[in-house]
Structures are given as C-alpha cells and as structure tokens.
C-alpha cells in the first residue's frame, strides 16, 4: 500500500472504471456477453465513475488520463468465454484497487464510500463467475 495522494488514488480508480466501461460496451457491441449480465454491471460501473468524478471535482482534479484499448481486450472479444474470463480478471483487479484505496485514503467518510463500491465490485466478480457456470465463491 504505497502512499499516494487522494487525487492520484481517485484518478487511478476513475481510469480503471473507464477501462471497465469501455470493455463492457465493446462486449455488448460484439455480442460476446449476455445483455442480462453486462447491462446491470455497466450501469453500476457508470455510477461509480460519476461518483468518483464528483469527488474529484471537489478536490482539485487534473484531467483524467487517457487510455488506449488494450490488446488483451481485443483478443477477449473473440468469443463469450474469453470475454467473461477477461472481464472476471478485470473486475478482480478493480476490486483489489478498491481494497487498497478504502484502506489508505485519509478521509474516513470517503473510505466508507469506497467500501460500498468495493462490495459492489465483489458482486460483479460473483455475477461473472456465475455467468461462467462456476461456483459463486472460491474455496
């Protein structure tokens, strides 16, 4: 848990949320993820991004970093199974980022709020495992 500023941490979370949003939008466009799985998750990721943007707007944010589409995403778009496994990896990384942020940020109320997003990201992990036919919990 390296020391970073609140703005740095929130910007990194926002950039990661933007990658997730782009991933689900691409998956839906290519038809490699069931809408019933992706649309609720996508809507929640957009809410997370909006909340982070609001928080950054009150904290002297710089412009969010631009990102380019990942080659791994391009590969994952070839079929439903590849996409679901890629999305599961991405959501697992996202959750780890929120675990880190919810512990390290100095503002106690913000830590609680990030924790509520963390719990939602956990639900996404479970939803994606379920979509892959796996058990919801890993032993």
């Amino acid at each position, binding site marked *: 848990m390296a020391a970073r500023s609140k703005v740095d941490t929130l910007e990194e979370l926002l950039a990661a949320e933007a990658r997730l949003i782009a991933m689900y939008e691409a998956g839906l466009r290519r038809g490699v993820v069931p809408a019933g799985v992706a649309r609720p998750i996508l809507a929640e990721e957009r809410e997370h991004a909006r909340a982070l943007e609001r928080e950054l707007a009150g904290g002297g944010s710089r412009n969010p970093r631009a990102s380019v589409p990942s080659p791994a995403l391009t590969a994952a778009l070839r079929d439903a199974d590849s996409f679901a496994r890629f999305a599961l990896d991405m959501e697992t990384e996202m959750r780890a980022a929120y675990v880190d942020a919810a*512990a390290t940020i100095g503002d106690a109320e913000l830590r609680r709020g990030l924790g509520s997003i*963390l719990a939602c990201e956990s639900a996404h992990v479970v939803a994606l495992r379920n979509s892959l036919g796996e058990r919801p919990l890993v032993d």
Partner: protein
Amino acid sequence: MPPSLTRREALGGAAAALVLASCGGSDPAPAGRARPGSGAALLGSLLALEHAVVAAYRACEPKLDGDPLREVRAIVDQERGHVTRLQGLIRDLGGDPPHGRSAEEYARTFPLLGSADDALHFADELEQRQVRAYLEALGELPDLSLRGAAAEIAADEGEHLAAVRLMRGLPAAEGPFVTGAL
C-alpha cells in the same frame, strides 16, 4: 457523502440488526492489555458479530439442501477464517479476543425459519449487516494495516451477499453502492 438507507434495509434489515445487536455489537470489548484507541475494541465487536453469524448460518442449514446448502457451508468456512484473522489481529494489539456464546444462547435470538426462503432471506440480512459493519470499521479503524484487513474481509462479505442474492433469484448486486453511498 451522506449514507443512504433503502426502504428494504429499513424494513427487512431491521430484523437482523435487532437480532445481531443482541449477540454481536453489544458484547464487551476485548479484555487484556490492548491500548484504548488501538482498534481492539472495534475488532472485538466485529469478531462478536462473526461468531453470531456463524451460529446464524448453522441455524439456516437444516432448511437448505443441494447447491444452497453447499454454498452456505462455503460461506461459513470463510466466516470462520475471518474469526481466526480477527482473533489474531486482536491478540497482536495485546487484547484477548471475545469468545462466542453457546449455540443455545444464539438460537434464542434468531427468528423462526420455516423454509429455505426464510433461511436465505435471513442470510441476506446477515450479510448486509456484516457489510455495513466492515464499512463502518473502515471509517473508524486507526491503523492502515487494520483497515486493509477490514477492506479485504468487506470484499469477502460483498461476495457472500451477492452469492446469497443469486440463490434468492435476485441480481448479484443490490445497486452501485452496497449498503452505503459515495
């Protein structure tokens, strides 16, 4: 960032909150040499809640079979892991971790469960209560490593809540901000 409370939490969640308040959060702080303000007392409350939740899941098991029973047992295994972890953290702070109550004492405080649906509804309330407790702890624990542990366990509890919701035929997430708001 005002916390939000859904109507469902206000109504349905109240039952579990009442039950678990009587067997978790009101238990005494850990005895021993833990320094005031170290977080040991808060960890003791979380541990008391975990003990109560393990007992509550045991009360649910007779109403379940098949996949739901298997998943509930997997949840209980993870909750026991949380118990062990919290005990270690409290001892590291110089405290004596609180013990759980007897199964009979817990059972007196639980609602009557007449069906699998009742059991899963109760499990849903238990997990919401746990997520809320760990999010509160994230705000209050003084030490970064303790908050890291609380965040990791909160992630597990979020998975448990989602798994229970799927078993109830609900979407995995109850919304973008589980039991809270940003």
